[in-house]
């Protein structure tokens, strides 16, 4: 980045597509031909990646540590699921409505979240997540409570592609949404707004002094991240045609942080890479008792903090020459 004097040139240079990015997206199509039996897992990975990208926007770029991001994911999932259950099974509009509901809740809670820092921030985001979980748990007449939301019936995508058992439609749909989300996030973080977010992360007090209102910008990105999380949740509800309380749980929020950190925070593709590594590892190790799976997550976390503080992508970036950085 040194040597580029003009900020517009710098941002424009960042926006150019690197060959490795193109190769990455082409590789994402491989599951269709290589492992067609694993397509349901592949769409789970794409959904988790969407969720992780949304957390990366607030955690990696804006520096807001959230332990309750599943609130927006779950809200999107329940909204999309309930709409479909009520008789409107059109997937694409359901997706947008799910995202909008989560975004609205994100906007409202954003006013609270951006006011606090450190432990209070962790506790307030955790509290919002737990509150929503309790609401969904208590309102079992609406959400099905512990049994989950059943009877989500989806119409064919664009009127012609049914959600089949093998997951062809589900993966194509999820992958397309993931691509759109990454595209939007890419545009966002390489814009002047995205740059100001990183500056707020580095020094929140200085930014208002040079004309960027920190709290307003943090609220904006929090709303955007909540919307994307809601879209991810809606996608999960539509592709699995089921919503469980787990979509809102603290475990899901904690797991998401693990995924993002393993991939690398503040790197756009960190969440995607983390989702692939984590979900595949979990699938391979799922024969074990889930209690022992926790052992491996714990070990991974400690290892990442001590030896790979910037995640897998950060580790790769230090190994490879600078210009091939994938962010």
């Amino acid at each position, binding site marked *: 980045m040194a040597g580029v004097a003009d900020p517009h040139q710098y941002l424009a240079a960042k926006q150019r597509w690197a060959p490795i990015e193109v190769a990455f997206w082409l590789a994402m199509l491989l599951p269709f031909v290589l492992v067609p039996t694993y397509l349901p897992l592949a769409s789970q990975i794409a959904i988790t990646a969407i969720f992780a990208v949304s957390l990366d926007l607030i*955690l990696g770029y804006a520096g807001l*540590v959230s*332990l309750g991001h599943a609130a927006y994911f779950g809200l999107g999932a329940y909204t999309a699921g309930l709409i479909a259950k009520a008789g409107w099974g059109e997937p694409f509009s359901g997706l947008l409505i799910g995202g909008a509901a989560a975004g609205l809740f994100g906007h409202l809670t954003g006013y*609270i979240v951006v*006011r*606090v*820092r*450190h*432990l*209070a921030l*962790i*506790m*307030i985001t*955790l*509290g*919002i997540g*737990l*509150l929503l979980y*309790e*609401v969904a*748990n*208590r309102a079992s007449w609406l959400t099905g409570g512990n049994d989950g939301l059943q009877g989500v019936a989806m119409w064919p995508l664009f009127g012609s592609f049914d959600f089949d058992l093998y997951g062809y439609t589900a993966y194509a749909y999820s992958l397309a949404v993931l691509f759109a989300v990454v595209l939007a996030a890419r545009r966002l973080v390489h814009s002047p707004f995205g740059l100001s977010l990183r500056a707020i992360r580095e020094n929140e007090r200085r930014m208002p002094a040079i004309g960027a209102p920190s709290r307003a910008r943090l609220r904006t990105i929090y709303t955007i991240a909540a919307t994307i999380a809601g879209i991810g949740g809606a996608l999960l509800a539509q592709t699995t045609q089921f919503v469980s309380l787990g979509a809102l749980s*603290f475990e899901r929020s*904690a797991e998401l*942080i*693990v995924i993002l*950190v393993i991939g690398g*925070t503040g790197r756009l593709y960190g969440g995607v890479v983390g989702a692939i590594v984590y979900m595949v590892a979990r699938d391979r190790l799922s024969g074990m*008792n889930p*209690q*022992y*799976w*926790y*052992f491996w*997550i*714990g*070990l*991974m*976390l*400690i290892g*990442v*903090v*001590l030896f790979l*503080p910037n995640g897998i992508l950060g580790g790769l970036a230090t190994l490879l020459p600078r210009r091939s950085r994938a962010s």
Partner: protein
Amino acid sequence: MIAPAVGVLFDGFAYGMLLFLLSVGLSVTLGMMNFVNLAHGSFAMVGAYVAVSLMGLGWPFFATLPCAFLVAGVISVGFERTLFRRVYRASDLQQVLLTIGLAFISVAAAAWFYGTMQQPVRLPVYLRTYATFMGINFSIYRLFLIAVALAVTGLLVGALDYTRFGAQVRAAVDNQRMAQGLGVDVDTVFAITFALGSGLAGLGGALAIEIVGLDPNFTFTYLIYVLIVVAVGGLGSIRGSLLAAILLGVSDAAGKYYVPTLGAFLIYLVMVSLLLWRPSGLFGRR
């Protein structure tokens, strides 16, 4: 009408005392080093499993309590010296991740060694009875719990206010760098405080089995309550933790008794509103 209310108050107070024991150590270490230790619940669990194992070997209940304290303290200081100190200067996120990773491992380890079922605890008979006063039954065990917690509080406040070590701890909580500059060995003070705090969590864990049971998920179930107490009470404040713990215990018991449909909803709502009103807690200084 009065009797159930007194009973709820009593149960809630006892529960609050338990939460205080579990969380006071975290509050002090967080206030001193700004170190977010989400593995604190694991040390409580260590204490609980030590007590269960020793009782399994035939030890009397009372003899297991000091052991729970000691083992949890020693194990915690081992981790503090080797692992935690590497991330004191790192970001919140790194600390949260490292310690939550350790908490995950402790859950898996507990499941590996003890299985996932609830652990039985056999209390001495005289602790399992009730004292009746003005027509209301008071559990002897809860009275005992309150007595222990009050004794610990008294000792802590006394030690913190009137001993040289306590003055060093207070200085380090107020301003770590200044204390260092004045010749306080903050590193050692912190290690000792950490061991004491985790030991108290271990003691709390051992005392908690009778009331809340013990299985490998203990760590995470109580982690959330402990964090609420610490965040609401204010970092580094013993009085704040005590007040927050009692508040939480009583509102939890009252909520469960009077509005069972709301469940834990009420507690989270109270926490979020309190933190919005005072982000650094009731007695927090920062």
